C-alpha cells in the first residue's frame, strides 16, 4: 500500500519537475502581488508594516487558488483519474497524497520565499519565524480545502471562477488565524493561541478534506 502511495507521490513530483512553470507561476504571482502593494499604498514603512500580515496571507490564498484548477483537471482530461479511482488503494489516501504533492509544489515555496517579502514589507527579524510557522501550518489547509473545491468543479465550464466562490469563504479561518498570529507578535503579544488553533484546523482538514474530496470525485466522475 505504501508502495502505491509512494508511486503516486513520485509520479506527481516528476511531473512538477518536468513542467516547472506550474509551480513557478504560483510563487511568481505571490511575489508580484506583494511587490505591487508598496506601489499602490505608498512606501511609508509604518503603513506597510501594519498591512503586512493581511497582504501576505491574502496573496497566499490567491496564489494557491490559481493552482487549484489543475489539481485534478489534467488527470481528468487524459483519463488518469479513472485509473486512480480503480486503483486498489482507498481513494481518500490517494487524494491525500495528491494534495501533499500539491502543497510541496505550491505551499512550501510560498513559505520559503516569505522571509524575503517580509523584509520588503518592513517586518522585524524576530517576527519572521512566526510568519513562516503560521504559513507552514496554514498553507496545507489551503491545499486540503482547495482539493474539495477542485473536485466539485471538475469538468464544469468556468470551473476556475466557481472554485474561487466555493473555496474563498472556507479560507477565512486560516486567514484570520494566520494573519492574527503575526499581528499578535507585532503588538508584543504571544502567538501561541493562534498557532495552536491553526494546528487544530490543520488536523481537522487532514482528516476530513481528503474524504470529502474523494466523495466529490466519485460523484463528478459518475
Amino acid at each position, binding site marked *: 500500500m505504501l508502495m502505491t502511495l509512494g508511486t*503516486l507521490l513520485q509520479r506527481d513530483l516528476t511531473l512538477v519537475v518536468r*513542467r516547472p512553470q506550474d509551480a513557478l507561476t504560483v510563487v511568481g504571482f505571490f511575489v508580484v502581488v506583494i511587490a505591487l502593494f508598496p506601489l499602490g499604498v505608498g512606501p511609508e514603512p509604518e503603513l506597510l508594516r501594519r498591512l503586512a500580515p493581511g497582504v501576505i496571507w491574502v496573496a497566499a490564498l490567491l496564489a494557491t487558488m490559481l493552482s487549484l484548477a489543475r489539481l485534478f483537471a489534467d488527470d481528468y482530461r487524459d483519463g488518469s483519474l479513472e485509473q486512480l479511482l*480503480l*486503483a486498489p*488503494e482507498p481513494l481518500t489516501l490517494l487524494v491525500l497524497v495528491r494534495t501533499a504533492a500539491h502543497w510541496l509544489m505550491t505551499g512550501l515555496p510560498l513559505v520559503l520565499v516569505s522571509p524575503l517579502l517580509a523584509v520588503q514589507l518592513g517586518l522585524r527579524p524576530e517576527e519572521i519565524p512566526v510568519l513562516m510557522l503560521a504559513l507552514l501550518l496554514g498553507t496545507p489547509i489551503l491545499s486540503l480545502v482547495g482539493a474539495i473545491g477542485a473536485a466539485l468543479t471538475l469538468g464544469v465550464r468556468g470551473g476556475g471562477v466557481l472554485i474561487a466562490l466555493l473555496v474563498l469563504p472556507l479560507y477565512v479561518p486560516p486567514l484570520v488565524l494566520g494573519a492574527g498570529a503575526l499581528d499578535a507578535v507585532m503588538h508584543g503579544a504571544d502567538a501561541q493561541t493562534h498557532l495552536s488553533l491553526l494546528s487544530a484546523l490543520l488536523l481537522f482538514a487532514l482528516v476530513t478534506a481528503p474524504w470529502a474530496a474523494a466523495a466529490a470525485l466519485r460523484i463528478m466522475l459518475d
Partner: protein
Amino acid sequence: MPPQALSDECLRAVDLAAERGDRRLFQHLGFTLAPGQLLQVQGANGSGKTSLLRILCGLSRPARGAVYWGEEPLARVEGGIGSCLSYLGHRDALKDELSVRENVLFAARLGGMIAGREAADAVLARLGLTGYEDLPAGILSQGQKRRVALARLLLEARPLWVLDEPLAALDAQASAILREALAAQLAGGGMVILTTHQAVDVPGDCTCLRLPDGIEVATAC
C-alpha cells in the same frame, strides 16, 4: 508475458438499467461472463456502450440492478474491483511529460503490481515500441499512444479486461497484435469485454450483446 489465469470468478450483471439525463439507455440487461469468454458489446452511437462498461468497472452506478464479481457485489470486492480488472477507456491515461516506459511503470505500480523495467520493456517490444521507451509520450502519434495504453494492460495481466474501442486508431499491425493478445487472454482463462464497431474475430468463446437503439429490452444476438 502470458496472461495469468488469476481467478475462476465470473462477472455477472443482473437486471441492469442505465440512464443518461432523463433518457433510459437500456434496462433489464443481464449476462454472465465466465473465464475464457469474450463479450462484444455492440450498439449505435449513444446507445450506452461506454455507460455499460463504466458500470461494469464500478465507475458509474447503474440506475437499477447490480454487478457481481463471483458472489460479491462490485463494491464489496476485496481490494476494489480495480484489482480484478484493467479498464481502457477512450482516453489513454498517459502523461505527455513522462517517458513511455515511465508511463507504463507508474500505471502498473499504481494498480498495485510490482513491475520492473525489464518487464515493461518486454511488453513495449511486443507492441512494436522498441526504441521509444525513453521518449516522452507527448510526441507519440495517436496510434502509438494507444499501443502504450495496451502495454499497461498486458503488464497488469488482470483476469478481466474492459476495453472501450480498443481498435480505434490502431493500424493493421497493432490490431493483429491486439487480437493475438485477446486470444492469449482468453486461452489463459481471462475474460474480455469490449466495444468495437469492427469484427473482433478472435478464436475462443465470443458472444455479442447488442444494445437497443430505443428503449426496448436488450437481447443477446
